[in-house]
């Protein structure tokens, strides 16, 4: 990477202005952090993911946890999300979109760009005539062994 250092260099034009200004005694920026990380004792007990949930999620998501680390990561994500229970949301409407007050634009139901069948099919790994090809359906995934560490 050494030659890259020669390609880029800093030109200090002047003393940076921010360091030159006199600090006000009563800055509006607080001098200490205004909140702390959440107190774990206020949260519900940590969730442990059981084997049934693992299998259920893998079937729904169609991705696997791969290993014990994947399960630990989900448990950590749930633990993090548990902090939401400390917020009082009584009577608060859920928000789907920041554009909720605006009308959704609908265009006329007419073909504007057609005749692109070949373009669309070109990205498929397997086609027969003009069909996408899938293997047989309605066969459940085989049951898997539990994850070892």
């Amino acid at each position, binding site marked *: 990477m050494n030659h890259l250092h*020669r390609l880029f260099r800093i030109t200090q034009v002047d003393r940076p202005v921010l360091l030159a200004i006199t*600090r006000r005694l009563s800055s509006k920026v607080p001098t200490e952090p205004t909140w702390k990380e959440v107190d774990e004792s206020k949260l519900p007990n940590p969730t442990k993911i059981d084997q049934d949930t693992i299998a259920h999620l893998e079937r729904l998501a169609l991705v696997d946890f791969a290993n014990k680390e994947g399960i630990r990561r989900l448990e950590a994500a749930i633990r993090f999300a548990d902090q939401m229970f400390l917020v009082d949301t009584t009577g608060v409407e859920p928000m789907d979109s*920041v554009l909720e007050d605006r009308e959704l634009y609908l265009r006329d139901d007419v073909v504007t760009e057609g005749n692109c069948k070949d373009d669309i099919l070109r990205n498929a*790994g397997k086609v027969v005539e003009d069909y996408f090809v899938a*293997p047989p359906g309605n066969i459940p995934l085989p049951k898997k062994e539990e994850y070892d560490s």
Partner: protein
Amino acid sequence: MCRSKHHGGRPESSLTFLTTFLAQFNFPRVFSMLGLTLKETARLLSEGKTTAAELCAACVARAKQVQELNVFITETYNTAGQQAADSTLRHRQGNRLHVLDGIPVTIKDAFSTAGVRTTCASRILRDYVPPYNATMVQRLVDRGAVLLGKTNMDEFAMGALGSDTGGSVRNPASYCGVVGLKPTYGLLSRHGLIPLVNSLDVPGIFTRCVDDAAIMLGALAGHDPKDSTTVSDTFQPFSLPEDIDITRLHVGIPKEYHAPHLSAETLNTWQRAADLLEDAGARVSQVSLPHTPYSIVCYSVLCAAEVASNMARYDGLEFGHRGSDHSSTEALYAQTRHEGFNDVVRGRILAGNYFLLKRHYDHYFIQAQRIRRLIANDFRKVFEGGVDILLTPTTLSPARSYRWFVQEDNRTRTEQEDVFTQPVNLAGIPAVNVPVALSEDGLPIGLQLIGQSFQEKTLLTVAKWLEQQVNFPHLQLPEH
């Protein structure tokens, strides 16, 4: 590591000096041009002092020199050469399309480009060639911009360049000492931007200075019939004044942005910038956005839920990577997705499915949507109280080392890195990173200005004022 790569910029006033100075030594002009801003480069092009072809060649040469930074996933130098030649001809004939005509640009590999591979840095789209251009790409092409290549990113835009879901424009802009604009949700089209979180994703703009961000915004903003979430109001492109009066400006300092783990240097920069505004006559007050500490938690749940739903499209049948297990549809899907996604994406898909389970839906997903409203309301109340703009840090600290980053998993790091940026995405409002100072180690420190919905002009005007004051020591490219 592209994180530590800096781009240079020069104050407008030094341009004439620079060209005269270089002329006497007979340095190749092309290399000195690479340090200029978009606005300055466009002027050289329009005055015939350089050509799009010359400029493109210089950029390609520079890109080749720094190839090991792994900036591009796909280089498009050949088509760039053709676009530059076309632009050169247009300039010669006096038919310039737009101020962007002949200006080299790069596009994050999350934006679809017709006939050019678009991977989202994911194996699942490794060989995907979109049949169409994203609207943002089309608008750049229509204005004569020269597309150099598709830039690298985290898989599915989880922390990289050119689109902003939770801070992926402002955050790297802050680390690299450049301007990074996240516009209001609904102002720029997402058509052809491969979605991560539909209700939060916005195309974002990186430039060397604030004026350039306004130019790019003018070229890109406005309703798109192909994206029903773009608003249909007419967007009026604007340029920013040189003499900016901030004495009638009311700046809010949200106290919750002094969060745990804010670095001393970033805090100091924030305090000094607040004082600078106050000294110049702006009204500066401390305000409160009380739900800020829960914002990143809310974001993590909404993000996982939308990722889980968005990634359902990758089944290997219609496009993208396809596995080889043909014993059943589900087996093919599972294998395709195991091979196609990295562990960060898989982790988000699994967490999202967990939060969306029938028994968890209200508890987690709906609760997150309720908190989202509280966060949006926090901003609304502050703005309704008369505040025009908010000033905050962009990140907790200057760029950290790779060694530091990998000590925790990606999910944990995202929680830390996006703490000041994602509330803005949840509320849909615009924000911009302005490079403000250098740390003791010489790393850029940026500050974030947050504005009201569709008030980009006010936002960028204040950003330009700050930029004018701080004299940020940009990296320069040597002229040899």
